[in-house]
């Protein structure tokens, strides 16, 4: 079935009919996979595309802010990922070991990801803006054996490596003539001898592939363990939801340090043989619009925060560039507000299609399909093959009445569903109730079956489409010499939906001041990441606690959102 045929079918057929007749084996057939055979994402995204006659097609056009650029065909992907794989194997890395990718959005990140998967090792991408503490926690938890990084991030790895005795290899992709230290090794992907043939490790459907870290309310971040079979969902959703077609030029804004950047910034487009463009640069409206016009981008997958930043820069800058190539726009990370959807129609003549999913789902699960009427502000409807519901908060039974808020839940069993949390079985089990996987978000369903997002169901902060756990922030706050106690909660924000706000009590001898506020903000930014940095700090005399002494973040969060605090009977009077 051609992709355009899928879209026509989605438009012409009833949604119910399409859903009723859906089977994931559609993707298995199209990918040439038969159950029980070997399946390897690295091979599927490179060698397989070459075998289909697209070896000379451009797979990646990469550019940085200064205008430096590189281009790679699918055959380059095949050979260079072989080259990475061979290098990793020669270091003695075994299948199943975790190999971290800690880089900016450089070609080595994208191609290295495929290379690691080809060896049977587990790719562990981490956001390069993470501070040393965030990096340490995730590498310790995963017991990571090797890390691929750039010279500019090496100092963070050096700071923590003594605490990581099992990190055997620190692979620097741009070391040049720099002096390297113990355990460090230089690897220049483009200058290394090209490996034409590599025996790809015959991973099976349930073999571990990618380990992405995500935050929860309690404890440190959890490693969501995915498997090679996830490509089945990522391939089909890229085709049906992002509407990737053979001649598309696709741009995904997401960084592969997060799940969108791997599921839809690597696996989805390349398993479809789609050309993608990458801009390794910070935000700049003019530069982004130039980039779209220059490359004649047809499909753009962005995020509400980016869209709202573009809105802030106005429509005049949009008009200065030719965006007539844009055919389909989609968004992910947090709910796309109606104003942003309407603005995109005014600015580009097209509406952004909101998509809902998360690290644990591995693929888009609730979405606005191409061809489906959009209700601005709605998340859309479940992807065929995904059984979704909103559950009663007490009984965990599906709510059948329209408009009633409940917990977003999914019936387990789709191909890219997380298989577990690394070293955290109890945390994983806690995500299931009554045979449903709980996403941790609240929504309602209207009479047409459209889902409407209402907010998180826990204390996790969704800032700019990234989940930040309060525990990690509070732990880092306590490392500051002035902080006695703290609570990190979400605060509403017009651009990022939510930002971090910290409530802090000070140790004896310290007084609240602007200087101290700024010092604490920068402390968190450097230790954890800019995302985790509190955008506001309120110094308080005490924090609300239960009688057993546990800080009740709910009270503080409700105040920020102007919501009723509810039952306060367990809160201790101070």
């Amino acid at each position, binding site marked *: 079935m051609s992709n355009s045929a899928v879209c026509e079918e989605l438009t012409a057929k009833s949604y119910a009919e399409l859903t009723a007749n859906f089977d994931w084996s559609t993707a298995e057939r199209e990918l040439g996979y038969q159950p029980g055979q070997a399946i390897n994402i690295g091979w599927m995204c490179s060698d397989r595309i070459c075998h289909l006659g697209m070896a000379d097609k451009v797979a990646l056009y990469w550019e940085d*802010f200064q205008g430096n650029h590189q281009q790679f065909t699918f055959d380059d992907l095949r050979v260079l990922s072989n080259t990475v794989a061979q290098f990793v194997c020669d270091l003695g890395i075994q299948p199943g070991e975790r190999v971290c990718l800690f880089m*900016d959005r450089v070609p080595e990140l994208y191609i290295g990801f495929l290379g690691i998967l080809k060896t049977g090792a587990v790719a562990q991408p981490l956001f390069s*803006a993470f501070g040393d503490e965030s990096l340490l926690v995730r590498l310790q938890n995963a017991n990571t054996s090797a890390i691929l990084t750039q010279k*500019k*991030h*090496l*100092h*963070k790895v050096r700071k923590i490596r003594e605490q990581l005795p099992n990190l055997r290899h620190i692979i620097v992709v741009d070391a040049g003539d720099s002096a390297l230290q113990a355990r460090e090794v230089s690897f220049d992907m483009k200058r290394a001898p090209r490996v034409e043939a590599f025996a790809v490790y015959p991973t099976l459907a349930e073999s571990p592939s990618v380990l992405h870290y995500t935050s929860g309310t309690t404890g440190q971040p959890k490693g969501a363990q995915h498997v090679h079979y996830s490509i089945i969902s990522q391939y089909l959703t890229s085709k049906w939801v992002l509407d990737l077609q053979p001649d598309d030029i696709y741009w995904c804004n997401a960084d592969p340090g997060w799940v969108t950047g791997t599921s839809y910034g690597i696996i989805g487009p390349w398993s479809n043989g789609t050309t993608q463009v990458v801009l*390794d*640069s*910070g*935000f*700049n*409206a*003019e*530069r982004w619009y130039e980039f779209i016009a220059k490359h004649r981008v047809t499909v753009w997958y962005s995020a509400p*925060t980016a869209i709202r*930043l573009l809105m*802030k*820069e106005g429509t005049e800058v949009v008009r200065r560039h030719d965006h007539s190539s844009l055919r389909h726009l989609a968004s992910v990370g947090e709910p796309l507000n109606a104003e942003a959807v309407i603005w995109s129609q005014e600015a580009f003549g097209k509406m952004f299609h909101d998509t809902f999913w998360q690290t644990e789902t591995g693929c888009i699960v609730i979405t606005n399909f191409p061809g489906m009427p959009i209700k601005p502000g709605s998340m859309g409807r479940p992807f065929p093959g995904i059984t979704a519901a909103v559950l009663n908060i007490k009984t965990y039974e599906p709510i059948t009445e329209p408009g009633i808020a409940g917990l977003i839940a999914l019936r387990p069993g789709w191909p890219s569903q997380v298989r577990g949390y690394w070293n955290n079985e109890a945390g994983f089990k806690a995500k299931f109730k009554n045979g449903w996987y709980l996403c941790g978000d609240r929504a309602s369903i209207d009479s047409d079956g459209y889902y409407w997002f209402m907010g998180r169901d826990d204390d996790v902060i969704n*800032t*700019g489409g990234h989940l930040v756990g309060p525990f990690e922030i509070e732990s880092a706050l306590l490392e500051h010499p002035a902080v006695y106690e703290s609570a990190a909660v979400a605060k509403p924000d*017009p*651009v*990022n939906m939510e*930002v971090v706000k910290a409530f802090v009590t000070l140790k004896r001898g310290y007084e609240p001041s*602007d*200087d101290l*506020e*700024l010092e604490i*903000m*920068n402390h968190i*930014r450097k230790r954890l990441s*800019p*995302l985790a*940095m509190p*955008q506001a700090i309120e110094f308080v005399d005490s924090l609300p606690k239960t009688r057993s002494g546990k800080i009740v973040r709910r009270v503080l969060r409700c105040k920020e959102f102007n919501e009723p605090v509810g039952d306060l009977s367990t809160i201790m009077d101070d």
Partner: protein
Amino acid sequence: MDEITKLVRDYVIREYLEEGDEREITETTPLISGGIVDSFSMVSLKRFLEKKCNIQISDACATPDAFDTVQKIVGLVHKFQKAQPVAV
């Protein structure tokens, strides 16, 4: 280099350049678009300017473009200093 330009430039070098990053920061080096300061970290830079220059920068004016170079930031500071004449 005037006092505010030096203040901003020194702060950017001290707070946002990674250890060992020897990039030169000039008045026109792209900060946000060049990936040196991200849009989240912009808030701490804004807070620093407000504190040191005794101004209040409105959220509407605190755009990534307005914070993209030292030169633009200094222009923004001057604009708000004129709007709210106070001693630095």
